[in-house]
């Protein structure tokens, strides 16, 4: 009875899972196919995979010189030895990736640089602000805290146009700063709130005993507060990475220099350039652009799921 019920549940969840993943599965599949294949038959496995297996089998059997037929880009049959055919098939399968990587390399490096700066800057700025606002009493500490979190009230759509004017007046257009500083400034707001709720919950005894041992303010922050707040730090880091990674329209507007684009606007620039109809390359580029976050995901699934499932997300 229980197992029948589980089986039905698996069936329905499986349908949802398949529907969710299908677009990405097709993009992955088509990234290994040539434009010729994609245009002539949308559904199908990469022909070059078949070729790799066929010619690879011959090579492994030591029959490298057996002549096999190879279909070139125009669909014409060429006769060549199996060893050479294997190389040709491999090139066909990975051609999209070679070109996609070549175009995306700059964008990826830009994004990595920006994301590291944003994540580091947000954690530093927000944790210091939250630590001071949570643990020290001075005139206006409450007002400053409200000043900080009231910023959450103003949506991005309100500040989008004037933010452009501000960065233009500061001369930041077309520099990395335009992506780093506004992201830290905006991202630190919610991060400060998260950090402060966490710091407020730390027992005062902890700080008292450290002070008696002669720890200064900086040591309190560096040796006690930061190590204790590791789970919060990782949540803030993941949030700022996803924010900076996915933001498209802001860098698209503020960077005229194509070499500075991060991955999001870079992909759009690529998809509207001369590669617009080159689906094989485009799909490969989409897949390449997903790899860094996939690695992060594999590394951080557990803390991420635990963080979101902790029950803090409700209104």
């Amino acid at each position, binding site marked *: 009875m229980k197992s029948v019920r589980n089986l039905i549940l698996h069936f329905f969840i499986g349908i949802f899972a398949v529907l969710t993943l299908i677009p990405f599965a097709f993009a992955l599949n088509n990234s290994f196919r040539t434009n010729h294949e994609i245009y002539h038959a949308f559904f199908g496995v990469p022909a070059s995979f078949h070729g790799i297996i066929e010619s690879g089998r011959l090579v492994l059997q030591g029959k490298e010189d057996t002549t096999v037929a190879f279909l070139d880009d125009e669909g014409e049959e060429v006769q060549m030895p199996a060893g050479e055919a294997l190389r040709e098939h491999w090139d066909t399968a990975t051609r999209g990736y070679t070109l996609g990587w070549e175009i995306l390399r700059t964008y990826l490096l830009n994004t990595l640089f920006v994301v590291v700066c944003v994540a580091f800057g947000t954690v530093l700025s927000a944790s210091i*602000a939250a630590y001071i606002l949570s643990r020290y009493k001075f005139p206006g500490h409450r007002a400053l805290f409200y000043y900080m979190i009231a910023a959450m009230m*103003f*949506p991005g*759509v309100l*500040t989008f146009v004037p933010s*452009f004017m501000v960065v233009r007046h500061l001369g930041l257009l077309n520099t990395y700063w335009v992506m780093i500083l506004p992201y830290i400034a905006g991202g630190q707001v919610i991060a400060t709130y998260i950090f402060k709720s966490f710091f407020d919950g730390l027992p005062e005894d902890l700080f008292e005993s450290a002070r008696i041992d002669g720890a200064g303010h900086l040591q309190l922050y560096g040796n006690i507060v930061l190590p204790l707040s590791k789970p919060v730090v990782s949540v803030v880091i993941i949030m700022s990475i996803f924010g900076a990674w996915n933001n498209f329209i802001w860098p698209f507007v503020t960077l005229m220099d194509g070499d500075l684009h991060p991955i999001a606007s870079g992909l759009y620039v690529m998809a509207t350039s001369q590669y617009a109809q080159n689906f094989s390359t485009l799909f490969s580029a*989409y897949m390449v652009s997903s790899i860094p976050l*996939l690695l992060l995901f594999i590394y951080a699934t557990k803390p991420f799921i635990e963080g979101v499932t902790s029950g803090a997300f409700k209104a």
Partner: protein
Amino acid sequence: MEIENQGFLSHRVRYWLGCYALLIIPIGMLSVFVYIPVLWAFIGSLYAFEVGGDSEFLGLTNFIEFLFRDPTTWPSVGNMFFLTGFMVVTRLTMPLIVAKLIFSLTREPSRYFYRVVFLVPIVVPGVAMQLIWAGMIYNDAGMINEFLRAAHDWVQLRGIDIDLEGLTRGWLADPRTALFAVAFVGFPWVGGIDVLIYYAGLSGIPTSVNEAALIEGCTGLRKFFLIDIPMVMSQLKLIMVISLIMGIQMFEGLFIMTRGGPGFRTMVPALWMYFNAFSFQRMGYGCAIGVFLFALIFGCTVLTFRYVRSTEELEGRA
């Protein structure tokens, strides 16, 4: 804290100054990159100005033009409400259903496995996902059309006279389907993070409540509607507010997929703001649309918080 005089500044004042000094950078960045733009948005909406050009004071002319004279306004507001409503409804239902299905599984490893599976798509950049939908699914030679053509051939071979091929079209280019196609992106709308949030709500239901329901014979769909949904109202309310705020502001996806076209069929106010500010050099008018959308978001959020009850409020605890 003991106070002793050292020099002309007391210990206490120097301690305060230290706090202010450390707060200068966070507060300064916040002021420059958030609060100055906020002020600028309100003030700029009263002017006509270009990037690097002169500005002219207009009073409320920008708002009057947007609300009463611009023929784009009301169709685009309608589109925005349709897309936002669609997003709110799908995000309140689909991930909750999936979370409930996953939660009902008996083995923890399989529950964990499915939570991870639905989370995987977040590694694909949003831009890439929209480009995949526009270029691979809605395209002339895309997935839907190819599927229709294949189905057409299959049906014709069996002598059934249904013209499925006649249904093929550029789904984003056809004025009759563009708006629905845009809303349909992301089907089946099971966002991994939403699933996690609802899952957290479901696992937060006290065992006593579940046992009481079981004893009373309240199971299956009845339990889902009478127990589970009221118990995850806090999560539903959060997702509702988030998707309202996101829906009203959303324009990146439309910019990538349709640029508001065909005609103005998929135009929304936020995208119209972008075009006015950065294509037509009407920064003041753009600011005015931004202020309008801010007022709308503010109103919707207040209404949600006033009229939608969270679990705590339903229980009379808050």
